[in-house]
């Protein structure tokens, strides 16, 4: 495994994941949803984890949180968060970390919100689950975070039920709940995908502000490269359970090295692509049941050759730029 950055001590790294593998044992075979992923995150850093469906990006997030169901087996060479070893953590320890130092925001806010409980009940419960405080104090904390995410008239919102609120409002409350206990890391799994464009803009604005103010680290999982580039410090692109490219946002946009990243960016329709057919990556994501040996992207790659029958691994191609490809940087 290539250690992305050699640092003075490990204290600077908030999250250190090496060799994460999450395999699902189904009736039809083993599905290697995540097959050797390494991530490192400093405090206060924002990482954009980009991939299409089947890339394993969401499963990576769930694996770190310990939310993978029974059918999946999570194994990592190393998974350290804020000094805790997540691979050795018991269910009790994970429960005390989740919602406390490690929070998650889901695509559908109704995964966070209980439709039968009022907002204040849920938020107070979330606070009191991790800290012995009075109801009054928990309620005050709830009001404070609601204001932080830019919700007007928060007292009224506290008394409401989730079905009284719009989708955008619910997602903001879900974000507020994630912030209640001042987490060190938030993992956001496509939180704005189901929201309208103007609401999406509001939420991105709030999240950017909050991460700067509170120094929270963030992993933003998305399929939309363009959406997250303005927010993230670093980006990692996933394909078929592997990270294929990982670097700072600026470097990724200016100099994509991996053919998949390059193809992805070239496929995005815009005013500039008018009048010609869009660049298309041929074929579709392979079934993760029986991935052929060698590079997973081989069958769709315009740079593929005989060498690609051996699976490449992440190599450093520049300062702080990792790519998993034998032909990185080549143009057609």
């Amino acid at each position: 495994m290539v250690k992305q950055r050699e640092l003075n001590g490990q204290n600077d790294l908030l999250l250190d994941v090496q060799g994460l593998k999450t395999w699902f044992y189904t009736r039809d075979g083993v599905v290697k949803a995540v097959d050797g992923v390494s991530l490192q995150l400093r405090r206060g850093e924002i990482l954009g984890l980009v991939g299409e469906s089947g890339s394993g990006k969401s499963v990576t997030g769930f694996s770190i949180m310990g939310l993978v169901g029974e059918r999946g087996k999570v194994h990592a060479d190393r998974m350290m968060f804020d000094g805790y070893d997540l691979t050795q953590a018991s269910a009790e320890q994970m429960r005390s970390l989740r919602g406390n130092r490690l929070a998650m925001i889901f695509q559908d806010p109704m995964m966070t919100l209980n439709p039968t409980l009022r907002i204040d009940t849920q938020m107070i419960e979330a606070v009191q689950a991790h800290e012995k405080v009075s109801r009054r104090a928990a309620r005050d904390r709830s009001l404070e975070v609601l204001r932080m995410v830019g919700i007007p008239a928060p007292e009224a919102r506290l008394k409401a039920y989730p079905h009284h609120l719009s989708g955008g409002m619910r997602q903001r409350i879900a974000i507020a709940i994630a912030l209640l206990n001042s987490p060190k890391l938030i993992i956001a799994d496509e939180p704005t995908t189901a929201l309208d464009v103007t609401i999406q803009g509001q939420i991105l604005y709030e999240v950017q502000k909050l991460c700067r103010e509170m120094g929270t680290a963030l992993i933003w999982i998305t399929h939309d490269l363009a959406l997250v580039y303005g927010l993230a410090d670093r980006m990692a692109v996933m394909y078929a359970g592997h990270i294929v490219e990982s670097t700072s946002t600026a470097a990724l946009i200016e100099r994509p090295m991996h053919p998949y990243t390059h193809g992805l960016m070239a496929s995005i329709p815009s005013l500039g692509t008018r009048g010609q057919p869009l660049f298309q990556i041929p074929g579709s994501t392979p079934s993760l049941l029986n991935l052929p040996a060698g590079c997973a992207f081989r069958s769709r790659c315009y740079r593929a050759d005989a060498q690609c029958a051996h699976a490449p691994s992440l190599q450093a191609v520049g300062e702080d730029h990792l790519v998993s490809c034998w032909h990185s940087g080549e143009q057609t």
Partner: protein
Amino acid sequence: MSRVVQTGPEAIAAAEPAVRIETSRWRRFVAQYVSSKAAVISLVVLLLAIAAAVLAPWISPQNPYDLASLDILDAKLPPGSKNFDGSLTYWLGTDGQARDVLSAILYGMRTSLLVGFVSVTAAFLIGAAVGLIAAYFGGRMDAFLMRLVDMQLSFPSILVALVLLAALGKGVDKVIIALIVVQWAYFARAARAAAIVERNKEYVEAASCMALSWHRILWRHVFPNCIPPLMVIATIDLAHAIALEATLSFLGVGVPVTEPSLGMLISNGFEFLLSGTYWICFFPGIALAIVVVSINLVGDHLRDILNPRNEV
């Protein structure tokens, strides 16, 4: 809205990678069904019961309703005894009229299962038609039909059946009619609920966009997708119908003496239950219980695997 929003615990499952399913639906269904041993055993038992009932005239040792073949001296013989000349073994004994209990059970099961299957099938078709039409057209049609269903469901089924049979008289066909009247409403309600969900799906909109007629859409597009919940109700209702018919026969208003069902056999044997000749009532009761329980177990397991949330 840009993407299909995934809700609930399925979202974590759905985040599991895109795996193209190659096996056919039928094979997966069978694989899921055999995962429960209890359900497989119940299905086997049920199929044996049905086979036995269908083949009753050929496999039963004696035709208990052919009066010529009965010898009154053989009445109330205990299980295992032989008849006068040793040609016939009464495995389960004989009843008060010297009928072989085993044969009577086979013939009785025939009637019980016949009544059950026919009434459930007819109630299924009638109820499904009503429910689908109510869901598809909505508005006043829906309100009117559902009020009929509500009225039907507000009366206890045994009461309605009793009243109907009092008016219609005895007979297997009359019992079937009474059971249909009592059961159709459950199917109507389930069919309507399923159809309302399907009606809003885009493939139904696509069908109407292609200018297909309403009956074609209902019958070939909506109905096949409503079958799973209806199948579950049908299986459980079958058990219910058989039990209900047994109750009616026990009370003496169901099937005639010439075509007894398991319930009637139980009724006939009831008076003997505590007087030492328990087998006349006991064995038909066991048979009834086995049939009803196996149908229930099959229906239970079907409900679990046909649950749309489990569908990939």
